[in-house]
């Protein structure tokens, strides 16, 4: 059953790092956005 541990570990590593990265991106942009008016954003 060592296999199960490895398999689960690889799924956890994958999705946890993706989650952490996305969270960091959203948080950084939120703090950056504080000083910029929403209508200045080219995509909105």
């Amino acid at each position, binding site marked *: 059953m*060592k*296999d*199960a541990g*490895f*398999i689960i*570990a*690889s*799924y956890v*590593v*994958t*999705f946890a*790092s*993706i989650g952490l*990265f*996305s969270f960091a*991106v*959203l948080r*950084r*942009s*939120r703090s*950056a*956005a*504080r*000083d*910029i*008016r*929403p209508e*200045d*954003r*080219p*995509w*909105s």
Partner: protein
Amino acid sequence: MTTRVARDRVTGTPFTRGLGIVTIAGIVWLVIFGLFVTPADVNQGETVRIMYAHVPGAWLAYLAFIVTALSSAMYLWRRTRSLTWDRIAGASAEIGVLFMGISLVTGSLWGRLTWGTFWTWDARLTTTAFLFVTYIGYLAVRNLGGTHHQRARRSAVLALLAVLEIPLVHFSVEIWNSLHQEASVAGNTDVTMDGLMLFTLFLGVIVFTLMYVWMLLHRQRALTLEDMLDDTGLDRALAARRTEAGVS
């Protein structure tokens, strides 16, 4: 109302929201299929399940680096010198480094189970490790400072140099390796995939690609915000200096 918008979806649009929901649903689907629904492989046994996370991750890293190279070329090629291309290149490289790191880890976990070793000096693995280090260097150069356009030109040239470097490294490692002829790692790792397994693998690639698009859009917009922040800081400092000049 404006403050609510600012709080709720800074780098988001209805499109990215929809994309995000689809992606999350896809991830759930992928995990259920990958871990429970698909059968074990004849040769690899349960270990093959790592592949449903590993292969799409590796695919994505390569896709991200290709996007970095293409948008760097676009930055240098187009006369407008649009910083958007530069930000796409930077955002994509960050995501690429992330996914390459992930797939190095999942790959070595898989290798330990199937080959009995975390690492082997196979050409593809070695090239991947070099690629990883090279793009860490690329990200370091992006953070050197200077104006936005200095950053953009420097890193664009570097990204194109990396494209040149990779085939050379791959080729040299390949012929270096072919000389060794050390009984290449464990024989029986061939996967005979049935329809459901293949489908799950494709599902993984599609889900990860959607995830990449979502991350790229958000990261690229976050970089835009950061660059804009530098610029609004500039406007304020400019105004301050002009008043200063008027006073003296």
